[in-house]
């Protein structure tokens, strides 16, 4: 039993030089076989393992990570958590997750610093405002919080926004979801890892999957850089690299990988209170607890597996943010980073069985995977435990692209780069 995290235990540590803490997770050797293998030690994979163990009692589980856990998109996002989607399949899914977020720190006994400080979409004209009302109304009818704000109300929350009428993109109002916010991204991976490990899950780092073990149309395990590991069920959960790993099993997916960039400025005293996004422009801004302004925009608009974005894409997002919030002008961009995102061909994820027996897919999160971590883990665990999708992930099947039941929130259609 691990030492539980608490203020008391910290104070005890102050007296003993914090010598009583054990490693947050073990470093086990892989066993020959497991009930379930999860490929990918990111947020979704670790959450899946945790819920498999906790909710379904399946503890003979391995999470295989080619590098170090939490090094993919869970460690490379802009930490936003929200459920304010227009389409019901999406907002119901993300709302289920948002509810999990609200108790996640207690559940994991790891403070993931979930901070429901509110996330607002700005509207820049009447057309935007009607679309925001439509989104908010759709959410409210399904029991999800959403509130329209007037410019005056916005000014009270974010006084540094340019609320003048002659702004290039004047601000006519906003739709805010108060229960949305940010979380400490790395802590989410570590918290799930620590909790899953405590329930017996083997987290195996530096273990890259190089192929699948096949028996007819059934996957019975994986080949790895640390040998063959067998499992009754194998789940792919490698956002950004889904095309590559699925390719090892002979699958072609409705996914292209693109680079998504983000950046943080030098730390300053509190200046942005909520999460600010825009309906017409393509940027999002929040302030970390360390004071850095965290922001991002759209992905680089062409395929790439390199965690290396192009500067002009970032500069465009910054131009949009500085226009809307001029006080950002004299801050300095401190760090930039990129993640590889699975851009699916309707903008929505794919979670469910694959056409190959024993193989399951969790992919296609585009640039919205972080906020989905608990819901994705929960529903994927259900799918891996029962062989069938949970009602929340049933709409997100791989078949929908061929049948036409796509879930196209942003109306972009089949080419993510056509946005």
């Amino acid at each position, binding site marked *: 039993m691990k030492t539980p995290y608490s203020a008391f235990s910290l104070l005890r540590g102050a007296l003993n030089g914090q010598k009583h803490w054990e490693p947050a997770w073990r470093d086990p050797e892989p066993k020959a076989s497991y009930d379930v293998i999860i490929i990918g030690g990111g947020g979704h994979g670790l959450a899946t393992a945790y819920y498999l163990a906790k909710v379904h009692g399946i503890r003979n589980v391995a999470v295989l990570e080619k590098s170090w856990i939490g090094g993919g998109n869970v460690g490379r996002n802009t930490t936003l958590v929200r459920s304010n989607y227009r389409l019901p399949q999406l907002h119901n899914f993300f709302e289920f997750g948002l509810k999990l977020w609200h108790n996640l720190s207690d559940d994991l006994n790891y403070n993931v610093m979930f901070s429901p400080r509110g996330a607002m979409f700005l509207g820049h004209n009447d057309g935007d405002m009607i679309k925001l009302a439509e989104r908010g109304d759709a959410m409210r009818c399904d029991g999800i919080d959403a509130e329209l704000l007037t410019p005056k109300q916005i000014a009270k929350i974010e006084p540094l926004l340019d609320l003048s009428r002659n702004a290039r993109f004047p601000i006519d109002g906003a739709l805010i979801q108060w229960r949305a916010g940010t979380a400490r991204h790395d802590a989410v991976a570590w918290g799930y890892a620590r909790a899953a490990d405590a329930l017996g899950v083997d987290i195996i780092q530096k273990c890259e999957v190089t192929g699948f073990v096949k028996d007819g149309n059934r996957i019975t395990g994986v080949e790895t850089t640390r040998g063959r590991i067998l499992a009754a069920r194998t789940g792919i959960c490698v956002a950004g690299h889904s*095309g590559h790993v699925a*390719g090892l099993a002979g699958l*072609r997916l409705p996914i292209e*990988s693109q680079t998504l960039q983000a950046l943080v400025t030098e730390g300053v005293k509190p200046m942005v209170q909520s999460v600010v996004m825009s309906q017409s422009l393509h940027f999002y801004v929040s302030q970390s607890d360390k004071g850095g302004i965290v922001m991002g925009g759209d992905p680089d608009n062409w395929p790439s597996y390199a965690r290396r974005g192009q500067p*002009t894409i970032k500069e465009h997002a910054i131009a949009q943010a500085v226009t809307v919030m001029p006080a950002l002008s004299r801050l300095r961009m401190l760090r930039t980073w990129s993640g590889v995102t699975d851009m699916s061909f309707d903008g929505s994820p794919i979670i469910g069985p694959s056409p190959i027996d024993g193989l399951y897919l969790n992919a296609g999160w585009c640039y919205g995977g972080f906020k989905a971590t608990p819901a994705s883990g929960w529903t994927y665990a259900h799918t891996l435990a029962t062989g069938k999708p949970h009602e929340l992930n049933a709409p997100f099947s791989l078949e929908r692209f061929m049948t036409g039941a796509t879930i196209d929130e942003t109306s972009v259609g*089949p080419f993510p780069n056509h946005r």
Partner: protein
Amino acid sequence: MYQITCPHCGPRAQTEFTYERTTDSIVDPAAEPQTAMQALYTRANPMGLDDEIWRHTYGCRAWMVLTRHRVTHEIHAVKAIGPEALP
């Protein structure tokens, strides 16, 4: 930012270009629906070379196929497509 050697204009900044799709996702308007949807909705998405259609949208507006590496971003070949043109 890449430097793309346009078959018509020579080396130019990527800003002038737009990516359209891979050559294997060209949907033939005469194809059977099943074939057409396979082309539209599945990709190899390799961690290596792929053939991609790009356009010099903000330059000469011409279309071309780039053979480009998805990890190194090296452009191995560029080939013009479109109607016959004078040299």
